[in-house]
């Protein structure tokens, strides 16, 4: 142990910390963002590889059984129709999973204390967790797109819609994951949130079918599901056709993003279930 003499840089005055300090909020938020990205990237086999495989399974099974029986929007083959929906579903589920599982793990293992004692604002927490959720969502979505496009090419009508809905949708789901992670105290509560809210809403959002084919009651139900607008708007970017106008979808998804983000920020500001 060489504790004898501190080198010049080791003086403890507050002054010495200030010298090295970049604008703290930005630097702190950036570190937390990097940490959150690194966290899933270190286990990318699970966090990116596994969801890509799941999406390919869906494509193989549904595409094989339905390709010769179903045409959507008149001319689009079923497999091609399915691909953008599967990509977006993967984006949404993984954005949610990233924020929620990171928070609940830190809460349960207790290492959230490292963040709680840091001088990070609620904006920094929000930006970092949602930002990393977007990165994970996009990484998985990109992976699903690259693999599934071997099976069929859905075309690309307008990449701007694709990007806008991917970003806004993954941001919305990241913020929702943040709320779920703050609220849940146990892993089974988180599983319930995922299985009873997120899964049904994504499955019933028109990933696997055009909602125009549904009976009136279920069509109305679908129109009340914000996930429907995320999928529909995203798909519009590929086919130039959709169940509702992409501008309506943008309005609904944008409004949902603002509301959910507002709730997440307020919970963070209050330290809901994390500062007692």
């Amino acid at each position: 142990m060489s504790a004898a003499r501190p080198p010049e840089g080791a003086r403890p005055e507050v002054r010495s910390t200030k010298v090295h300090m970049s604008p703290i909020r930005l630097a702190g938020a950036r570190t937390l963002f990097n940490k959150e990205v690194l966290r899933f990237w270190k286990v990318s086999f699970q966090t990116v590889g596994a969801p890509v495989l799941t999406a390919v399974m869906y494509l193989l099974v549904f595409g094989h059984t339905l390709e010769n029986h179903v045409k959507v929007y008149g001319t689009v083959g079923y497999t091609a129709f399915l691909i953008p929906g599967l990509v977006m579903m993967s984006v949404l589920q993984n954005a949610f999973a990233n924020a929620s599982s990171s928070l609940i793990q830190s809460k349960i293992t207790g290492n959230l204390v490292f963040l709680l004692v840091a001088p990070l604002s609620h904006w920094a927490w929000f930006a970092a967790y949602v930002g990393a959720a977007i990165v994970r969502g996009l990484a998985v979505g990109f992976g699903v797109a690259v693999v599934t496009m071997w099976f069929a090419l859905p075309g690309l009508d307008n990449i701007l819609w694709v990007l806008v809905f991917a970003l806004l949708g993954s941001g919305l789901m990241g913020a929702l994951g943040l709320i779920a992670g703050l609220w849940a105290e146990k892993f089974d509560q988180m599983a319930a949130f995922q299985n009873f809210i997120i899964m049904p809403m994504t499955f019933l959002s028109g990933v696997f079918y055009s909602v125009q084919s549904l009976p009136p009651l279920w069509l109305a139900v679908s129109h009340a599901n914000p996930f429907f607008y995320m999928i529909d708007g995203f798909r519009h970017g590929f086919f130039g056709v959709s169940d509702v106008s992409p501008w309506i979808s943008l309005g609904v998804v944008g409004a949902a993003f603002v509301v959910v983000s507002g709730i997440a920020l307020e919970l963070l500001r209050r330290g809901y279930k994390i500062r007692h």
Partner: protein
Amino acid sequence: MPNAAISFQNVSKTYRGGAVRALDGVSFDIEPGEFFGLLGPNGAGKTTLISILAGLARASGGRVLVQGHDVVDDYAEARKALGIVPQELVFDPFFTVREALRIQSGYFGVRNNDAWIDELLENLGLADKANANMRQLSGGMKRRVLVAQALVHRPPVIVLDEPTAGVDVELRQTLWKFVARLNREGHAVLLTTHYLEEAEALCSRIAMLKLGRVVALDRTSALLSGKASTVLRFKTDAALPAELASRSRVTGRIAQITAHDVAEVETILGTLRAAHVPVEDLEIGRADLEDVFLEIMQGAKQ
């Protein structure tokens, strides 16, 4: 006048709508550069007080300042000035020791901090573990990393919440050597511990908490001399006379009786002789912090 390192001002904390009162108007200051001990039995409110200081909990009343910065209204400045070693042995299993330290440093806005990180690793005996994953470390090594994480942004105020609970002698020595050095260099240190000999050796001033209130607050030397300053220890198989039994501490065959001065020692010995109590291995020593602690805690009974 410089701001106190830490200022607790009438801090109270209640749970369940006021049914449980964990802290009840706690006030004291820790001066810059001071090595301060916070003692008390389990449930006295030590950890609650530190949680409020760290921003992990919110006070129901009163306020806490770190170098003049309110821990709620001006939390960013207050937290930058604080380095907290938590009581629980927690870690992030995704990262190596060096990664964990770089990340913690970044949260505080301190980048390119590897020179100081290396020095921390060296001083805490972690240099050869820098690239080991946190999961692979033993409990004692994880504890060292917690200390390093708390110091990574060079906080002027260091808080150690029972840092030596259940750790081996080597780490205890390493830790105290390093913390004492930081204290000499000007860091204020707030220590809570169950090991009273540690507090006696290290802390220049001590506060004792009981049931959420401060029951003693003084210089360690004043606490040791102000209360019973002498203690009589001996072994005996016989029962003590009633007037001594009520004020003695008996552990097996060993009896300890505190006295305030030499005359009182004479009186106690006289009483023992008169009662024909056979006494072996009699010694007269200076009272230690444990004696003082017990006397104060008994005196503070409701």
